[in-house]
């Protein structure tokens, strides 16, 4: 495998092919797993490392795996990789074990400098080995399809092989189902050169692949028994997965829309990410616990680290001193501003508002890289200008108003609640905030536009709090609790209030309860998306800012 790509394309290297290989090396575009949002939250700028970001694996030459991935995402990544046209390569960035994907072509640590070096190495590999004389095929188990035969008129009549329907005598038509679930299955199988399949268009509803075989049939007969949508228009229903690797949603968030034309009829939301969650917190010592909890929430690690420290502190009965408290406030607020900017960047991508996507992402990374409160302060004027410009964007209010509306009495928290006119904010009771003159930002409307306005105002507010706190880091004091002690704490994370209740056993922490805002908000996905046009449904879901990483059970 020396000097060539694992996903090289078959072909004898010739002068023309060498030229083409060089071009591919200069034009690297990556499909990012879990998503560009996670990269930015880790302070990694993909564009600066010379990588473009592709919206679909079909348009990518590199699959970039970022951080340790849960089993569910590794499977989804394998499916995505199988869909990429050759020449293709795997770039692992601090990813550890990546099976079922093939071994990485280049593996680097998750820092900006290492990534840049990795991309250079990848370019060399592309230029030298994009074409080889013999290639190996890659199969992902999830996309194996199973073919059954069914009667077009009587869906209940199925058989393992071709034949005719015992009830009406019509020829049975083949119907396929894929093996895996939760993957981006609008593309199906791809064995290295034969092509791909589609597991998505719902054949039960008369998938359009097979009209030709049916001969003449009246519309009434064709649509008989199929569900009728709210507008009364009988249209083809098709199941389409959105996520876990969908470009307009946070990486890892998985849903399935049943589309009625371009209206979302039914939403099936997956709970969290396969193979990720508090189960993995079993048998973690008190010393490792904050680190571990932070690791589980890549989009806001500091908030969960502070949550763990505070719950353990309460269990130990230890008072947190002023200085640490202030440091925690600074760190939390910097993270909040960065997290909201990260949300804006992803939202800009969904809305097709490229200026927003780029600039929010750039500011987020700059904010996360700032060394101290002074450097954060120097970003304040620029962020302020950015916020004012976003709010003045023509057509933005029109696009967002009335989308994703939730009733004010719903069990919601964080910016989602504060956009519904509810002054719910765990910080209002927080000791560290009292001296800083904190007032929750509250807006009315309860729709996507109100959520945008709350988050924009909170970005500025958080930077102001950082300035007043004067620090952005704190020293971690590991509290010494005894077995049997119980501690509970609540922290206002960027997405809302998270509550953790822990108890200590001999040498491990037992999580009695972990209540995260995303778990709660996940329950409203159906409410904001159903009976909406696809774009509006996605805007509604995205406006909730659900982090799939913190969705539990």
């Amino acid at each position, binding site marked *: 495998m020396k000097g060539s790509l694992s996903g090289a*394309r078959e072909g004898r290297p010739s002068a023309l*092919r060498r*030229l*083409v*290989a060089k*071009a*591919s090396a*200069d*034009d690297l575009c990556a499909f990012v797993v879990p998503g560009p949002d996670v990269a930015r939250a880790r302070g990694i700028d993909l564009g600066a490392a010379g990588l*473009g970001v592709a*919206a*679909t694996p*079909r*348009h990518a*030459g590199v699959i970039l795996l970022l951080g340790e991935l849960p089993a569910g995402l590794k499977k989804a990544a394998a499916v995505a990789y199988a869909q990429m*046209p*050759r*020449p293709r390569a795997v770039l692992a960035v601090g990813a550890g074990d990546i099976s079922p994907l093939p071994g990485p072509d280049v593996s680097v640590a998750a820092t900006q400098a290492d990534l840049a070096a990795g991309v250079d190495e990848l370019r060399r590999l592309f230029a030298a080995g994009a074409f080889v004389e013999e290639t190996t095929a890659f199969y992902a188990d999830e996309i194996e399809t199973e073919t059954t035969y069914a009667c077009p008129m009587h869906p209940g009549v199925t058989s393992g092989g071709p034949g005719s329907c015992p009830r009406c005598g019509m020829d049975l038509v083949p119907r396929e189902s894929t093996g895996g679930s939760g993957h981006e299955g*609008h*593309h*199906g*199988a*791809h064995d290295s*050169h*034969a*092509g*791909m*399949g*589609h597991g*998505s*268009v719902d054949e039960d509803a008369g*998938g*359009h692949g097979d009209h030709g075989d049916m001969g003449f049939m009246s519309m009434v007969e064709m649509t008989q028994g199929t569900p009728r949508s709210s507008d009364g228009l009988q249209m083809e229903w*098709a*199941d*389409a997965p959105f996520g876990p690797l*969908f*470009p*307009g949603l946070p990486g890892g968030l998985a849903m399935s829309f049943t*589309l009625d034309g*371009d209206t979302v009829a039914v939403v099936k939301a997956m709970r969290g990410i396969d193979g990720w969650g508090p189960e993995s917190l079993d048998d973690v010592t008190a010393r490792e616990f904050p680190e571990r909890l932070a690791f589980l929430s890549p989009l806001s690690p500091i908030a969960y680290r502070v949550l763990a420290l505070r719950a353990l502190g309460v269990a130990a009965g230890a008072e947190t001193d002023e200085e640490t408290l202030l440091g925690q406030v600074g760190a939390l607020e910097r993270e909040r501003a960065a997290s909201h900017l990260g949300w804006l960047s992803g939202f800009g*991508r*969904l*809305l*097709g*508002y*490229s*200026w*927003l996507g*780029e600039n929010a992402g750039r500011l987020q990374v700059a904010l996360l890289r700032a060394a101290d409160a002074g450097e954060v302060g120097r970003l304040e004027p620029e962020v302020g200008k950015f916020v004012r410009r976003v709010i003045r*964007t*023509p*057509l*933005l209010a*029109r*696009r967002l108003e009335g989308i994703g509306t939730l009733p004010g009495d719903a069990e919601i928290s964080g910016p989602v609640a504060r956009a519904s006119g509810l002054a719910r904010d765990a910080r209002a009771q927080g000791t560290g905030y009292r001296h800083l003159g904190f007032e929750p930002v509250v807006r009315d409307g309860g729709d996507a536009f109100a959520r945008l306005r709350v988050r924009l105002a909170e970005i500025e507010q958080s930077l102001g709090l950082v300035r007043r706190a004067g620090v952005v880091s704190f020293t971690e004091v590991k509290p010494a609790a005894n077995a049997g002690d119980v501690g509970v704490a609540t922290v206002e994370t960027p997405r809302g209030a998270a509550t953790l209740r822990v108890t200590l056993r001999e040498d491990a922490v037992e999580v009695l309860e972990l209540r995260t805002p995303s778990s709660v908000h996940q329950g409203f996905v159906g409410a904001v998306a159903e009976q909406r*046009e*696809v*774009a509006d449904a*996605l805007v509604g879901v995205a406006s909730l800012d659900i982090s799939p990483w913190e969705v539990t059970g």
Partner: protein
Amino acid sequence: MIFLVLAAGAYFVAVLERWATKGRFSLKGPVVSGLALLGRESLVPRKLDRIFFEAAPPLVLVSAVLAAAVLPLAPGLVVADLATGALFVNAALAYVMVALLMAGWGPDGAYAMVAGFRFLGQLVAYSMLIVMPITAVAMRAESLVTTVVVTSQATLWNAAYQPLGFVLYFLAAMAVAFLPPFDLPVAPGELAGGVEAEYTGWRLAAMRLGRATLVFTLALSVTVFYLGGWLGPVLPPWAWTVLKTLVVTAVMLWLGRYVPRLREADVLAWGWKYGIPLALLNIFYVGVVLLGAA
């Protein structure tokens, strides 16, 4: 000569588009991307409608080239100086919708299919706003011949003579070329590439070439109908046409960066509720001005 200009135009559109979307000006960028695309596998979906899938990318290109054929670069520099040239532009552009619908249906994928039908809806919104402003342009020129349309603007460009029609046509042209904020059929964030999602390798290269040519053709049509075509001092006539066209292209490409994509319902509602009455008003206004001058 004309096809050379068209090819060069499409090329510059690609350069400008990269500049607008990636923030880097690179003259060799599109060559590199194009070569890279040609070097990649062109996969075919398994349950495709072969004819639709294969025919769509060339059809975009064909309709763009056909429309460009009646648009003059300079006096005498036009492929076909048809008596019905201005109408022919509209007729040729109709096939863009057919191509995109085919590209959406062909691969049998849910995202692409929704995207294809979105563009059908978009056509309903923009098509009248292509025809009606052209009508007003033809009224002033008293001809559908595109070269006569240009010479009719010798005293005053149509952009100033009928600004309303200019704005409507400009926006409608952006909608035909599905440029942001009218990029509903490709919508990377909403439909992961939409009609383009299932195309790879040389087929994707063909699709992108067709799109670039289409943008150039539409910018050329804006130049011919509203910006006085080749008219201008000092420089040779063809240079004026090309220069104006590239400026129009640049504006088209940059405008969409600063606004969110429109909602499909809004595109339709605004097209019919505001666009068509305004286009009628424009025709009426041009009629009154013409009568007043006569």
